[in-house]
């Protein structure tokens, strides 16, 4: 029971991390391999603020904003070169450029902040809910993720800009013809993708800790989720995250880290082979 709950919370956190990579792919046709590094940047910013004895909430907000701005900066600088191309060329260029960016950021983090880590301790380590002892951190992360997702859904379904974003994901040319401002939607989406990754990094800080070298791990995890859930579907991403979160928690508990990684990657490869559009691609 505890394992399932942990898995679900982990899944929510994965969803926050992955939704950015999915949206950026859906919107711009580029796969951002520096996504995990953006999340780490947010976490490190929060950790540095906390070190400077700032208020925790303020630190968290600054971290999330920093991650959002980092993603936006990536978009405004490197990815512009990719947007000028179409199709396969764009994908490849963006892939290599963000791969380069991810290495540059990884190097920068481990070089400049080798000992900075984000670890958020709550006052009560665990509480009892309905007769089950639950870690407070799990509850906090769960609540944080659900609240963030609520905001995201409200934005997508309730605002004009959100509608525009969904429009472009469905059909970029069609959206352009209808007068949707693709540029503006892209800016907002990139910022949101980074900010959501930043929230996920805070969640990691609550759970255990977040170090400067965790970027690749985050990127790979979000990539796996994106592949399994289908790179154009929000519901798919959400369900795949929960599924993989539970699988991850259960396997880590029973068979250990290495086999868990192999299993997660194998699920991704199998999905690509059997249903390249993602397991849940045709869900709304």
């Amino acid at each position: 029971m505890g394992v399932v709950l942990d898995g679900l919370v982990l899944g929510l956190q994965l969803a926050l991390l992955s939704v950015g990579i999915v949206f950026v792919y859906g919107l711009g046709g580029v796969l951002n391999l520096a996504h995990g590094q953006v999340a780490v940047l947010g976490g490190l910013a929060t950790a540095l603020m906390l070190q400077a004895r700032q208020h925790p909430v303020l630190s968290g907000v600054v971290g999330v904003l920093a991650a959002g701005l980092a993603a936006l900066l990536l978009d405004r600088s490197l990815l512009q070169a990719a947007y000028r191309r179409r199709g396969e060329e764009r994908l490849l260029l963006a892939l290599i450029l963000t791969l380069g960016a991810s290495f540059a950021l990884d190097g920068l983090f481990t070089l400049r902040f080798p000992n900075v880590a984000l670890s958020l301790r709550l006052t009560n380590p665990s509480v009892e809910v309905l007769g089950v002892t639950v870690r407070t951190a799990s509850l906090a992360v769960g609540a944080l993720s659900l609240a963030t997702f609520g905001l995201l859904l409200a934005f997508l379904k309730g605002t004009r800009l959100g509608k525009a974003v969904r429009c472009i994901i469905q059909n970029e040319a069609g959206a352009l013809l209808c007068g949707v401002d693709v540029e503006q939607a892209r800016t907002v989406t990139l910022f949101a993708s980074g900010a959501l990754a930043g929230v996920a990094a805070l969640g990691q800080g609550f759970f255990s800790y977040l170090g400067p070298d965790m970027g690749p791990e985050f990127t790979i995890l979000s990539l796996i989720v994106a592949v399994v859930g289908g790179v154009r579907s929000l519901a798919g991403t959400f369900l795949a995250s929960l599924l993989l979160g539970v699988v991850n928690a259960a396997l880590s508990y029973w068979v250990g880290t290495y086999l868990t990684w192999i299993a997660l990657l194998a699920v991704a490869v199998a999905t690509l082979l059997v249903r390249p559009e993602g397991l849940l691609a045709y869900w709304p």
Partner: protein
Amino acid sequence: MSPSVRKALPVLAAAAVLSAVPAVLGGSPYQMRIATLMLVLASYAVAFNVLFGHTNQLFLCVGALASLGGYGSVLLVRDLHVFPLAAVGVAAVLSAGVGGFLSYVSVRRGFGVLFVGIVTLAVSLMLHNLLLGLREVTNGETGIVTRGLGVGLAEDPYRAYYTLLAVLVASLWAYRWLFSSPHGVALHALSEDEVSAELSGIDVTRYKVACATASSGLVGLVGALYADLNGFISPSVYTVGHVDIPVLIALLLGGMRTLLGPLVGAVLFSAVDELVRPFGQLTVLAYGVLLVVLFLVFRQGAVPLVQGALSHRLRPAFRPAGLAGGASRAEVGGGGPEAGR
């Protein structure tokens, strides 16, 4: 000069220059090691050039294929007491088989460059975790001391250097032969446009799989030799960051789709790597920045650049790999039909 000799000239020249390197270095073990590792990188880059440059297959598993060669040969000798040279051969065949299989699956499923990249990256990570996890066999992160388990390259730096040089020159020779044969024209056509190539009767699947198999075999062979000359292997010496990224950078530096590009790129990369190595983690940062800058502003690489500058002074004979020597896709496309006649 007969045409066949002229064709072989760049390969012979490179071999001659590289054979003289140990004499110039005067036997300093450290510098010999750098030079040998440069040859290892150049050989990987030759394979990756065929994979990515000529057949559009973004194999992000060069390190993983090399680790199959390395771990395969070492474990065969250690646990099954296979004769070392035979073990190296078997490991190379294993690596070739895996590479060919990955290519076959990708082509059959119609994966674009992105999906091939993701699948091969996932395979790399799976193998990495497998090597870490099978602690009883591989010692996990601790790694295996390979001294006495190979063909004896660790003991003699000269032997290591010249063995790797022989492999590199042989692979350059094979590349040169391939691209001056009719197969070169076919490969050229498919790297331009696979659908048109298929329509003009070229068996795209067969060419891609054959190229992937041969390249992976080369990577496996070099990976096995590396395990021997390094004296020690662990999963971390074969990671994407340690092998694939340097190979990609070296190929971009030197010039994709050229004969000598991989070699020139490996030389340049080794020089840069030596400059930043003292600063530890700076190497990762430098790799990232190099990759971005190269891909944005220097996509053609050094060899085509030098060729362009020298083209009116030297005869076309010196253009690496005849058909494949063009600087850009557009130029190659323009010259293709004429050269094919």
